Every structure is written in structure tokens, then in C-alpha cells.
């Protein structure tokens, strides 16, 4: 029978009779599975509506203020915007890259090149509509916070964080960390007992997303609210101003995209069927012998 033991190798119970070279453990509790898939949808749509909002002013600044006359550190814009062939560019800290078709200039609804930050296939809604983008974004933000609180409460009280995410003593030795880095570079995944727990880089990645990136995302988002700033002016000091908070909101969104890319690549390397099944049914197959 599956138990709520998640992935602790000491108490993970085999499910039914495993084939000789395989055993199945109960890896993900139902709360982890549900909050995971809710997050897949909510975070995807938050990113898309976020790009819609960004497009209303595709420039980023540091400090309290920043508008057209001020110097941005990042900008998506068009060169010769009124010509037949405008050039889309991304400028970051003085460097300029041509990004026509994707950033700065991309096809509008009429198929003609139009000036816009992110392209229409990436934004929600696809047409330029700040009011609707904001409505989506704030609706989804409430869902993200509710979903996140459920996950955090569960993780804290059920032992998920302590048992599954906290690095163990043997994992945080420099030699083990180095070995894990080498394994990742060689795309080698642990088998047997070692596969029953998360590896150290995996734990670091999850801890960073859960306890640093997502909280920074939510707090920097709230700092952009003039109403919330009156409630918690310390947020402005924490992030170094409203425009810095907008910048950090953008950077953390990029870090989440980076995490998702690595996460999905790792899922494919580790075995996509097994990984997806474990996040749907909770059951995860472990090879008990080294794979040839």
C-alpha cells in the first residue's frame, strides 16, 4: 500500500510486487501533486500576463523613479519604427542586440511588423490590452499565493521540507556536492537507494525557488502597488525603490523560467513517463540495479 512516507528511503514502502530490477515507491503526496499542477497553470499564465503588462512600458530602471527621460538598464525598442522594416532591439546595460521578430518588433495581428516588447504569442491576451492583462495577473496572483500557502503549511507540518528538501549531512560535504555536479554534467542519474531521495543540487534548486525566488516575486510585486506601499513602506526600503522592485520582479520571473527549463530537461533525462506518472499518481519507479 502507498504510504505518506514520501521519499525517505528508510520508510519508503515498496508497492505490490516489483519486477526484479525495479521497485515502486510512493514519492509525492497528494498535496504536492495538486499544488504542483496548479502552479504549472498559474505560473504559466502569470508569466504571459506579466509580459503583457511589461509591454506597456518595456523599460526597466533601478531606484524609486524611472520614466521616458530617465536611463533604463534594460529596454526593448524599435529602430526606425515608422519604416517598412523596423528593427527590434534589446538593450541591456549599454549593449545592444538585434531581436527583430521576437523582442522590440514582432508581427502584429495584421501580420505586419509592429513595435512591442514581447511578441503576441507570448502575452496574455495576445493583443495589446493592459487592462485585461492586469485583471488576469492579479486574479492569478491570488491563486499563486493561496496555492503557495497551502503548500507551505503542508510542507512545514507534514515534514515534507524537513524530510525531503533539507540537505542531509552526507550531502552537503564539498566532495558530495562536487560529485553531484559531475553527475549532472554527465547527465547521470542515481539509481537504487540514492534515487529514493532528491540529490543535493535538486534540493538547492527547490529550496531556492520555494523560499527565495517565489517570496521575492510576491513581495516585489506588492511593492509596485501604491496602496500596499502605504501599508508597508519598509518594502520600498527592502527593494531600494519601486522601480528597483519592478526590475527584481522581472529578474525573478526570468529565474523562474530558467528553473522551469532546467526542471523539464531533467524530467526528460530522468525518464519522462516515470516522472510525470509520479507527479500524477504519486508512484515512482526506482531501478535497483545500475542501468547499462
Amino acid at each position, binding site marked *: 500500500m502507498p504510504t505518506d512516507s514520501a521519499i525517505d528511503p528508510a520508510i519508503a514502502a515498496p508497492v505490490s510486487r516489483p519486477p526484479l530490477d525495479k521497485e515502486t515507491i510512493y514519492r509525492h503526496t497528494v498535496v504536492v501533486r495538486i499544488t504542483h499542477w496548479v502552479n504549472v497553470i498559474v505560473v504559466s499564465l502569470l508569466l504571459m500576463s506579466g509580459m503583457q503588462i511589461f509591454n506597456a512600458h518595456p523599460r526597466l530602471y533601478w531606484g524609486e523613479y524611472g520614466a521616458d527621460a530617465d536611463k533604463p538598464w534594460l529596454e526593448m525598442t524599435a529602430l526606425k519604427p515608422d519604416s517598412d522594416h523596423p528593427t527590434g532591439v534589446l538593450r541591456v546595460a549599454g549593449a545592444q542586440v538585434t531581436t527583430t521578430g521576437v523582442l522590440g518588433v514582432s508581427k502584429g495581428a495584421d501580420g505586419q511588423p509592429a513595435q512591442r516588447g514581447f511578441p503576441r504569442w507570448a502575452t496574455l491576451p495576445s493583443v495589446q490590452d493592459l*487592462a485585461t492583462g492586469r485583471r*488576469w495577473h492579479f*486574479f492569478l496572483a491570488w491563486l499563486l499565493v493561496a496555492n503557495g500557502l497551502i503548500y507551505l503549511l503542508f510542507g512545514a507540518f507534514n515534514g515534507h521540507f524537513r524530510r525531503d528538501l533539507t540537505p542531509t549531512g552526507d550531502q552537503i560535504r564539498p566532495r558530495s556536492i562536487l560529485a553531484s555536479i559531475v553527475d549532472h554534467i554527465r547527465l547521470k542519474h542515481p539509481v537504487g537507494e540514492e534515487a529514493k531521495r532528491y540529490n543535493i543540487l535538486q534540493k538547492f534548486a527547490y529550496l531556492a525557488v520555494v523560499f527565495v525566488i517565489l517570496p521575492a516575486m510576491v513581495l516585489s510585486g506588492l511593492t*509596485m502597488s*501604491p496602496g500596499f506601499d502605504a501599508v508597508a513602506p519598509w518594502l520600498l526600503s527592502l527593494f531600494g525603490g519601486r522601480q528597483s522592485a519592478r526590475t527584481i520582479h522581472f529578474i525573478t520571473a526570468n529565474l523562474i523560467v530558467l528553473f522551469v527549463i532546467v526542471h523539464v530537461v531533467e524530467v526528460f533525462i530522468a525518464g*519522462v513517463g516515470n516522472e510525470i506518472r509520479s507527479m500524477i499518481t504519486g508512484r515512482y519507479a526506482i531501478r535497483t540495479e545500475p542501468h547499462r
Partner: protein
Amino acid sequence: MRRPSVSRRGLIGAGAAGMGGLLLAGCDRLSNSPSFQTFIGSGEDLTFGAQRLLLAGQPLAREYSISQLSPTFKSNGTSMPGGDAYRALLDRAFANYHLAVEGLVARPARFSLADLKAMPARTQITRHDCVEGWSAIGQWTGVPLGHLLRTVGVAPAARFVVLHCADDLENSTDGSGQYYESIDLFDAFHPQTLLAYAMNGKPLVPAHGAPLRLRVERQLGYKQAKYIMRLELVDRVDKIKGGKGGYWEDRGYEWYAGI
């Protein structure tokens, strides 16, 4: 045992791409549905309720120092109202300007710019946050709206202050593009809510709303109505123009702009 991992992987990949496409198309269709807009708008209602709860003690928006002023304060929306009436006021440096205060008030009144400047004034350096994402810091001097409202006496039934403006963003002939805004009494009586007549120590210029503009510091830029000609106290806003309480509200933006 042969595991069909490749075809399954392909299937999942194709499925994910297909789902992605459907999701995009689906979200666009949902975005166009008024009832779905209302549904996701429930998030905005939640935000309004939560912020009002947290703002119950009427905390102040952060005030900045002179050294933090934006070198250039961006002028957005109208920078020079059209029409002869405004031109005539501007030509005489607003000497014949009057702010009308009417509706649900005990003593409807008209105030000249000199009358307003003779009232107790407040000066504050605050941040202006546009819904588009940019910010600018400016210094504002004006009469607290709360003081003016106490002068005319707010009728018990009044709930909103509607600000009627001189600018027509769509240059409409029927007045349908005339700018207007509304705030409720909770914000109207906040100590930082001003009818400002000076910016950065000088009389307001047309680009920033001369002769009189609103500062309601805990909300976004589109609430900061410029070129205010008339204040109207009402019990509800749904019978005015588009019915949503403001020019941008009638064009899809939220009435509460605290986020």
C-alpha cells in the same frame, strides 16, 4: 520488455505543444467574454477589500526629499486641452477660473484660484506611479480635499467625489471623451489627498493639469485627474457617462487603482 518510451515521449511533446496552442487561443477567447472578465475581476475585488482593510488606519504614502525629485516629470495623457474655453482661461492666467462644487453638498459653491490658495495648504513630495509601470517623483502643493469638503458640507447620502475635467482625450464633439474621475470619501478625506495648484514650487503648467489637479497618493496615475473644473458629490457613479466612475474605467481599467 520493450518500453514505448520514444513514442510516448513524442506523444507527450506533441500533446504539450497542442495544449499550449489551445491554451493560448482559449485564453484569448475567455478574455473577450464579459462574464469571464467579471470572473477574473473578482481578484480585483479581493484586492480592493484587502487593501481597504489594511489601509483602515489611513497610513500616509511615502514622502521623499527634494534631492529625490525626478529631473523630468513625464506628462501623460493630455498635455494641452483643446477648445476655446480653456484657452481663454489660460490667456488670463486662470484669473477668471472657478472651481464649482455641487451635487450632494449642503452649500454648493464656486471657488476662484485665489480662494483655494487662501485655504490651508499642504506640500508633499510623492511618487506618481503610472498604470503602464513608470514612476516619477514630484512636489505638490494644494488644498487638502477634505478641507474643501468640510467647507461646503457633505450631505449624508454622498459617497463619491466626481472630478469633471477640461480635457477631451478623444477630441469628441459630444463630450463622450471628456476626462473625469471619481474617488470615494475614504480617499477624499485622506490627509494627502490634495487639489494641487503648484508643482515643484511653481504654479502648475498645462502639461501637468493647470490650474488644478488631483493628488490621491495611494492610487495610480490615471486617478490623478488634471484640469479639474467641477466637483460633484454623488451617491453612485453608474449614471455618469460610461457608468464605471472614470474615463479609463469606462475603457476597461479598474475603478480602484491601488495596485
